[in-house]
């Protein structure tokens, strides 16, 4: 789908996301100015503190944004959603505003300051009438830098469920869809440029107090700036209204359904959400949480239920060594989640999303390959490409190669998981490790080789739900029971492909599937 077509079809959502984005940035900037300007002024009065405070602000700015978001989730004032995102944006914005406030106030002409003192102005009068007005241009330049940074960082906020234009970017990255990436990145870039220009204008306006731009040019600029402000204000208001509505429905919604940040997780969450709504249970959706945020949010009580894989819970959350017996893994996850997190594990959904060792279908047919062991002799002439995750994790490449005695022509290429499919289809590599339910497996005519030595641990799909909402909402337990054992691996592949390959909306795909199943 082309960008133009995408935008014309999705302009409502795009506008909502842009509004969320603006609101994150606007709230963060107001807070950052309220904090950094007074602190910056204080630093000009207590010069000894300048180095440690500015140093701290610099350190904050070097913390990777995703790490900072992750760090904020478990804190009482953090959590998933916009609040943590705004806090992170504020932390990033402190340094440029602090530094420019200090520079601006200290840059006030010595003779002007001396005159102010000698005229009998009090410290407060000098600050309000002389230092701040004269430093305003420099301070505003700092705000400008901070704002442009924030527009960029706010795209990452989508990973913790704060929404904004990053939602499209992450979705596009996951689905290998450049149109989606552009639909998020382009408006964000435009927004950054617009802020840069707008605040630059305000800077010029302040300078004009002493320099005097020609009246007509100035009036035209002010009119343009006013127009831009109206647009920004309208978007922020729109987003605030939506936020309020979401808040109101969120309060009525007894069940908060979340998903991790990949298509299958979104599909499974949406399936549960629609099933609940069909029972008349209001649902709040918190989709596309990055990394292990869904788990953190579940144990923090921010969300009620999300789809997970037993293997992930077993190794990544409970930190056990990989085990290959699916039944044993499920039982242990169920027991430990109940004890440690007060979380119940629903019945398996019927399919597994294991690591899938994939080769081109043509090769499999030509060489008559069915199992991984069949492929070992051929592999000596092959190249392999694996995702970073597979290369590094405990149940990944090292043990896999050892178990099968696999040797390749060259060490495996490490690349982004979504790129390995394309690399395999385009014959740049000959073997990859994908996910067994990936829609691209059928779409690209790939063959999954059987794990005949049972190396890979099982990744059965299940719903994890907190006990509280289960007790509160009987319909939730009923829905979990009913969805048990309803989706085959083949079906899951098809659903995934509808979204990833054909770029359809997850909600529509789920609705059709439910109708087809007569649910």
């Amino acid at each position, binding site marked *: 789908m082309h960008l133009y077509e995408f935008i014309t079809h999705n302009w409502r959502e795009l506008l909502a996301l842009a509004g969320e984005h603006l609101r994150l940035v606007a709230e963060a900037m107001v807070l950052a100015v309220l904090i950094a300007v007074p602190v910056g002024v204080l630093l000009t009065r207590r010069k000894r503190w300048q180095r440690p405070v500015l140093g701290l602000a610099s350190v904050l700015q070097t913390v990777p944004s995703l790490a900072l978001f992750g760090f904020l989730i478990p804190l009482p004032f953090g959590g998933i959603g916009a609040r943590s995102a705004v806090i992170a944006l504020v932390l990033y914005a402190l340094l440029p505003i602090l530094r420019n406030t200090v520079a601006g106030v200290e840059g006030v*002409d010595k*003779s002007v300051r*001396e005159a*102010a003192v*000698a*005229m*009998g102005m009090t410290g407060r009068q000098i600050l309000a009438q002389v230092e701040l007005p*004269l430093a305003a241009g420099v301070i505003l330049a700092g705000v400008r830098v901070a704002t442009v940074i924030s527009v960029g960082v706010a795209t990452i906020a989508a990973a913790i469920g704060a929404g904004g234009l990053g939602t499209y970017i992450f979705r596009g990255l996951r689905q290998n869809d450049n149109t989606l990436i552009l639909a998020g990145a382009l408006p964000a870039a435009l927004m950054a440029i617009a802020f840069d220009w707008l605040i630059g204008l305000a800077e010029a306006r302040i300078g004009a107090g002493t320099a005097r731009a020609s009246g007509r040019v100035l009036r035209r600029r002010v009119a343009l700036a006013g127009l831009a402000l109206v647009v920004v204000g309208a978007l922020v208001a729109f987003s605030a209204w939506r936020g309020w509505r979401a808040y109101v429905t969120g309060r009525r919604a007894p069940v908060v359904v979340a998903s991790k940040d990949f298509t299958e997780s979104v599909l499974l969450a949406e399936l549960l959400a629609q099933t609940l709504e069909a029972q008349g249970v209001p649902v709040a959706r918190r989709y596309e949480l990055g990394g292990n945020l869904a788990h953190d949010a579940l144990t923090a009580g921010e969300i009620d239920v999300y789809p997970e894989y037993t293997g992930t819970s077993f190794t990544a959350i409970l930190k056990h060594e990989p085990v290959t017996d699916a039944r044993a893994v499920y039982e242990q996850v169920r027991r430990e989640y109940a004890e440690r997190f007060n979380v119940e594990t629903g019945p398996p959904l019927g399919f597994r999303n294991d690591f899938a060792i994939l080769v081109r279908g043509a090769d499999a047919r030509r060489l008559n390959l069915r199992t991984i062991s069949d492929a070992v002799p051929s592999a000596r002439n092959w190249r392999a490409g694996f995702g970073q995750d597979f290369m590094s994790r405990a149940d990944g490449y090292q043990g896999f190669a050892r178990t099968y005695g696999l040797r390749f022509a060259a060490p495996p290429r490490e690349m982004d998981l979504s790129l390995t499919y394309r690399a395999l289809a385009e014959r740049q590599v000959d073997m990859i490790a994908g996910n067994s339910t990936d829609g691209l497996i059928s779409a690209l005519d790939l063959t999954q080789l059987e794990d005949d030595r049972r190396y890979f641990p099982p990744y059965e799909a299940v719903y994890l739900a907190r006990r509280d909402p289960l007790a509160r909402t009987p319909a939730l337990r009923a829905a979990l029971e009913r969805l048990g054992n309803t989706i085959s691996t083949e079906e899951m592949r098809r659903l995934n492909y509808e979204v990833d390959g054909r770029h359809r909306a997850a909600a529509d795909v789920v609705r059709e599937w439910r109708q087809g199943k007569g649910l």
Partner: protein
Amino acid sequence: MNQQPDIAEVVSFRRVSYAVPGLAAPVISALDLDVRRGETLVLLGESGCGKTTTLRLVNRLLVPTGGTVLVEGRATTDWDEIELRRRTGYVIQDAGLFPHFTVARNVALVPTLAGWAEARVGARVDELLALVGLEPARFAGRYPRELSGGQRQRVGVARALAADPPLLLMDEPFGALDPLTRAALQREFLSLRDRLGKTCIFVTHDVREALLLGTRIALMEAGRVRLLATPEEFRQSDDELARAYLATLQLD
């Protein structure tokens, strides 16, 4: 205003010293000096002789490290510093005008701080601008950077006079001006001083200016007053440094 005409000395230095930590010699040492009501006392000396420091001790921009500076018979440290400064006009070399204020707002500064009514402030600004030779209608709305050096210095003087302070401190106010402008401003200063009857302490390194404007001249060297004399006495003095200064006049 807090004028106390019964005290003849507006400002008195009593064994005043001022030392800066880390500096071997004090900037001012054991200075005794009286400034009489209505006179213009010129502090004359080379750069670094302590004349600007002496001036800054008067409105408590600096506090003496030894001795006492009395203003109207009261130690500067006993004054409320804000009150002391508002009744002391201050003019510096580059005027120190607020670049983001118009001429009118610059001049109106102290009256506004003192809480004068708006109409009274406006009238006062017009009066002062006229007094220093700037037509109010033309100059009131301008910003400092739209003025020449001489015009800025006139605004600086107007600002210092705005709240009618009994004491004026002037730190080389005409030092950065071209000779013709300087001569004009010096003449105007003389006529202003005679009309307004202000007490004035005037810092300069220009002996011609000192002789022209001073009722008395304090010749300073290394933080001390070396010679205190009227201009006539100064011309006749056999002090070595005074003679050296006078010699520069004959060269012209």
